[in-house]
């Protein structure tokens, strides 16, 4: 048999039909659904008299619109249109018999955090969701990617997707990370190196010692932002850490089925002489704590650097960089560590897991946030919130001056009431720094939870290594 990559193996195991031109029907093992990109798909089913083919493989949870304030049980905390959208998911989940975690369920949270937490996401699976950050689930060695609403409808109706295979790209992070450097710094640095279109047409497999050393939480952070590098999906081969994480989860297999699953999962790695269409290698030792300065996730620099000038770039990026600098209100040559912030947001499907909260708490313990700053921590799920409370992290956050919120997407995309005002500058652990992303005119700097915590204390973008 010819050598295969991990992606090749998962792909081959899911082709239900292949046409002569190579167009495939890829079988989908798990379909995650949230309230924003699904109402039109369910409406489409109704209009055509179709139904959900595999409701037992379809998991729904509201996350984008839901308020994260403690009073969210009060319907007035949501706008009318948000209420309608959440109510539509409620109705659709019940009518079509989906697995459903409503806002009132302690297991509710961001769909990409709930899926792994509940054991829905397992190695070797195909996982899709009407959300680009579905890439997160690749951390389990699952082929996971975002789809549009028409494709959501297609998966609901047929449990398949019409696909052509992507190319294989290997991103290797060799060696060890220096203290203060995290999974977020890896994933941002990779995007900084490849650009936001560098992965277009590829599925990325992340590998190397620095990736192997990451926890499952860290691996999810890395894969989460594969989409920001343009890739269809990002994957990491499953290993003992993966199996350990999955074991005992509510929807993970048990007993003999677990053993059978393990037999297959242990074959899920790229063969030594597999073909790669593109290879990128970064040295773990060279990666610094980074922040973004502009309005594209590729605008990444070490915190020790200065704001660049538009003239530092080439081609179409010159104009884009100038537009970014104007939008961000930054002057070329300013040390990034002198940029003052107004808001800190710790959370999102990129960095809303327990390890992220521990990292933030380690910096915040015994310290106070800068006076006048708005700072919030939004756990990725109700269970993450409960665990953080049990571990005493919530007390550290509250004592430091952070708001301690309920679970949801929150200020990552600001569809709920958590938004930036025009000109407001935010240190955020989320995944996109696009213009207007966190609110019209809002200015976003992406970074790790530890870096965001450090920024909360000083009120400026800050090198976390000075606080460790």
């Amino acid at each position, binding site marked *: 048999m010819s050598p295969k990559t991990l992606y090749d193996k998962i792909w081959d*195991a899911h082709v*239900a*039909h292949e046409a002569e*031109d190579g*167009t495939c*029907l890829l*079988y989908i*093992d798990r379909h995650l659904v949230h309230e*924003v*990109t699904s*109402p*039109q798909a369910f*409406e489409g089913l109704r209009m*055509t008299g179709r139904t959900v083919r595999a409701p037992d493989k379809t998991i729904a949870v509201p996350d*984008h619109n839901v308020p994260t304030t403690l009073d969210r049980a009060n319907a007035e905390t949501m706008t009318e*249109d*948000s209420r309608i*959208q959440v109510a*539509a998911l409620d109705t659709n989940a019940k009518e079509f018999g989906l697995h459903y975690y409503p806002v009132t369920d302690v297991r509710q949270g961001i769909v990409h955090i709930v899926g792994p937490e509940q054991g829905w996401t397992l190695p070797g*699976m195909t996982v899709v969701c009407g*959300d*680009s950050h579905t890439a997160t689930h690749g951390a389990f060695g699952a082929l996971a*990617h*975002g*789809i*549009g*609403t*028409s*494709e959501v*409808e*297609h998966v609901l*109706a*047929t*449990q*398949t997707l*019409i696909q052509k295979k992507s190319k294989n790209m290997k991103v290797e992070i060799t060696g060890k990370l220096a203290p203060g450097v995290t999974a977020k710094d890896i994933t941002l640095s990779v995007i900084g190196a490849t650009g*936001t279109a560098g992965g*277009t047409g590829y599925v990325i497999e992340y590998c190397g010692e620095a990736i192997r050393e990451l926890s499952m939480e860290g691996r999810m952070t890395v894969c989460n932002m594969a989409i920001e590098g*343009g*890739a*269809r999906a990002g994957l990491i081969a499953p290993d003992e850490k993966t199996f350990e994480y999955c074991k005992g989860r509510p929807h993970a*297999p048990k007993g003999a*089925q677990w053993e*059978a*699953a393990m037999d*297959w999962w242990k074959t899920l790695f790229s063969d030594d002489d597999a073909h790669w269409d593109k290879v990128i290698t970064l040295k773990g030792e060279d990666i610094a704590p980074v922040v973004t300065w502009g309005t*594209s996730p590729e605008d990444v620099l070490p915190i020790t650097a200065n704001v660049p000038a538009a003239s530092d770039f080439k081609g*179409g990026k010159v*104009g*884009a960089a100038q*537009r970014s600098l104007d939008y961000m209100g930054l002057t070329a040559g300013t040390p990034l560590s002198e940029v003052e912030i107004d808001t800190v947001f710790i959370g999102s499907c990129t960095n809303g897991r327990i390890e992220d909260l521990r990292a933030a708490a380690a910096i915040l313990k015994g310290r106070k946030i800068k006076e006048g700053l708005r700072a919030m921590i939004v756990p990725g799920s109700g269970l993450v919130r409960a665990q953080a409370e049990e571990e005493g992290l919530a007390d550290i956050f509250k004592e430091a001056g952070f708001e301690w919120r309920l679970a949801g997407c929150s200020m990552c*995309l600001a*569809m709920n009431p958590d938004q930036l005002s*025009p000109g407001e500058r935010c240190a955020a652990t989320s995944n*996109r720094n*696009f*213009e*207007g*992303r966190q609110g*019209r005119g809002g200015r976003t700097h992406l970074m790790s939870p530890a870096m965001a915590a450090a920024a909360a204390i000083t009120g400026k973008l800050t090198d976390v290594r000075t606080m460790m």
Partner: protein
Amino acid sequence: MDKFDTLTGIAAPMPMINIDTDMIIPKQFLKTIKRSGLGVNLFDEMRYDDNGNEIPDFVLNKPQYRDAEILVAGDNFGCGSSREHAPWAIKDFGIRCVIAPSYADIFYNNCFKNGILPIALPQEQVDVLMKDAEKGANARMTIDLEAQTVTTSDGETFSFELDSFKKHCLMNGLDDIGLTMEKAAAIDSFETAVAQSRPWV
């Protein structure tokens, strides 16, 4: 889905790279449960000021481009989220074709589900088309999907590549789900086989 065969229309120039889905349709308009009516909010934050008044400098607010049916843009068009509201807004505005050097994957796929043709051409050719678009309303481009060509107002023609299945669906306005349902037997037998080999799924 609407069929796409040929299109002759006004092309609006947007010489920016990385035009993301948050620019195309900001999140406050994702709260709809319908597919229609988003055209008025296409490029909302670039198109209107804080009071909702049109910003005259924005290309689609200029008299010569208000009826544009083609958009010429920079690299990595449609990057960002999976929101199909982006192509819905583009289509609802009246744009049926986007021309750029490259696209983000999910946006590209979403276009075909909505009767929009995203054409990828080398940067040098997009530069020529951008200049042509900058001439305004009197310069109309022609797209011929069957022949896979774009022709400028001066008659210069460029050929573009396209997946044959996507082309077939777009030209005939085919519904993907209907096509896949015809292969239900293959899906059934795949499911039966997997129930044996990977019962935990």
